[in-house]
């Protein structure tokens, strides 16, 4: 099939990274997950335009691209806040009090995993297991893993981000 390649949704240079991933994989349909990873890495989330562009480029139905993006927990279709906090809810973290941390965050900022504060400052996510069970309970603050946490310490860090101190 000789189809012209669809144009990226915008002039944004980041689309070149996305195209790079697809090119490296020969625009094969099996590159869908890899490409969505690149989209999320570049833009922070996967929006409808990105899904349309990727599915057209790889010649997979939009429904399949959407199905894949929603099936895997790692992908998010909503923009993320300025900062992200990922609380681990693996077994070791759970029995050492990860739930208390999530509850404290909910009481303080009114967000549950998958939500972002109204001012767009902090996104809260939960992970199934970060594999740092030796330091349970664990959370990741903007990519930095911190172990042996408790609710007050987490709240304190988030307050700094929200800047109401």
């Amino acid at each position: 099939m000789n189809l012209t390649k669809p144009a990226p949704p915008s002039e944004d240079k980041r689309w070149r990274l996305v195209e790079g991933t697809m090119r490296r994989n020969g625009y094969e349909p099996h590159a869908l997950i890899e490409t969505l990873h690149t989209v999320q890495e570049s833009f922070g989330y996967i929006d409808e335009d990105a899904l349309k562009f990727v599915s057209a480029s790889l010649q997979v139905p939009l429904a399949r691209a959407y199905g894949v993006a929603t099936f895997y927990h790692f992908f998010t279709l909503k923009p993320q806040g300025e900062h992200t906090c990922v609380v681990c809810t693996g077994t070791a973290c759970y029995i050492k009090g990860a739930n208390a941390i999530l509850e404290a965050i909910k009481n303080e900022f009114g967000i549950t995993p998958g939500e972002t504060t109204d001012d767009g400052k902090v996104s809260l996510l939960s992970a199934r297991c970060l594999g740092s069970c030796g330091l349970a309970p664990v959370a990741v603050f903007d990519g930095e893993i911190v172990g042996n946490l408790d609710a007050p310490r987490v709240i304190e860090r988030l307050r700094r981000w929200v800047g109401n101190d």
Partner: protein
Amino acid sequence: MTNEELNAIAKAEQESKERFEHEVCVCTAAGCLSAGGDKVKDALTGEIARQGKDKKCSVKGVGCLGLCAKGPLVAVESHGKKDKLYEGVTLEDVPAIVQTLEATETKGAAAAGLERSMDEPFFASQVKVVLENMGKIDPEHIEDYIAVGGYQTLYKALTEMSPTDVIGEVTKSGLRGRGGGGYPTGLKWSTVAKANGGATKYVICNADEGDPGAFMDRSVLEGDPHRVIEGMAIAAYAIGAHQGFIYVRAEYPLAIKTLKNAIRQAEKMGLLGKNICGTTFSFELHLRLGAGAFVTGEETALIASVEGRRGMPRPRPPYPAERGLWDCPTLINNVETFANIPAVIREGGVWFAAIGTEKSKGTKVFALAGSIVNTGLIEVPMGTRLRDIIFDIGGGIPEGRRYKAVQTGGPSGGCIPEQFLNMPVDYESLQQVGSIMGSGGMIVMDETSCMVDVARYFMEFCMSESCGKCTPCRVGTAQMYDILCKITEGHATLEDMDMLIELSDLVKNTSLCGLGQSAPNPVLSTLRYFKDEYMAHIVDKTCPAGVCKICSPAKEPVEVKS
């Protein structure tokens, strides 16, 4: 890359190591990194230069040293002296450690307070096969791996052995799948090798370590990535594949970075790619990132995911060994299985089979976590008693609390109570007591954990991780979760408990894949050994461990069935 060249690299590397009197190894695996291991490494490098010892001491980052709870860890190897291990190293301790390097007498030395004796059971009781290079080599540096004999086994396999010989050794070793299933590796390999001759074949490494509480694969990939690559290349040669994939969880960014780098280095040296070691054998290796779905640890779901689709399982047979990736014969093994291969081929299957028990050969890496003093990564021979693992190596339960259970096998496994502590840990014994080996996560619980709550936790996990393809798992896990919630909230009746048992049986026997088939295991095993806790929640409306917030303390009349 010939054997001479490999030897030359190994020799050069060893010689450059000889130049230094002391080698300071800083653990930079994820656990110690989050405690500031990288900063300690930089500080040590700076301090050694400041004290003018950089001609005598080298500093490098290494993989997991095992004792994750006490990070950051620093190991010092000195000529003619015993290795030392420092734990909980802070930036303030760095000058003291550097001073101690030269001290002849360690007693009373500046850093003596941080030293951890290497004679403790945690170190002395372990037998290292998979982790033999862990904490000794720099994972970012292929020459380090070659210096400890790396890739020589691949060379030996390619030049001195036929594919049948390789499979023969693996079969002789009695190695069984380390992902938890325990399927004989040699048998799997020979099935794929015999699969219709002309077809393309694939090798896949399952590094989708989804079990919460397990971090063995992550540590191996971050600390000794070339070992897995070498094992995969040997497997590819044995079964006649020329392409391989490593499927890694996206939650392990450090492992991904390390692997990418390792694959690049191996390609550059001609140890991956076309005509490896000057033979006719070619093997290309690609990385594929998972995207956070527990079910993709199941082999058919994993294949769907590598193909870029939703990770949903399909009925087996046909097994992937016959029809796997793009319908071609595919070999899928877990990280630890591949990591055992270089040792099996190097030392021979007979050597490997001498370790372990009659039916479970070799060693097993366990990740100890939860309510235990020495959380971290250990490797012990199969058949080691549970008591020895938890109380000797693991150092027992902290704060004088009492052991209640150990959870093995993650959401597919079960809880093992006190009466089985003297049991040898192998595939069969664990199955007998209603748990499974699983991938090797061991989570210890004390009296502050409520077993009903633990069962509910795992059921919530299985419910939200169910892919939804088959009804028993999609609906059954949700119903079971609801009942468990009712129990922990104190609203349940004894009929609910009967329903829970009936549902367990149904979901176990009618689900499509391993996720659903094993989802009831945590419930069944807690019901079997901790029924009194269920009864306390249902009849007395109390939670003995004080975990569950029982909403209705008032006792409702309970009809006891005859």
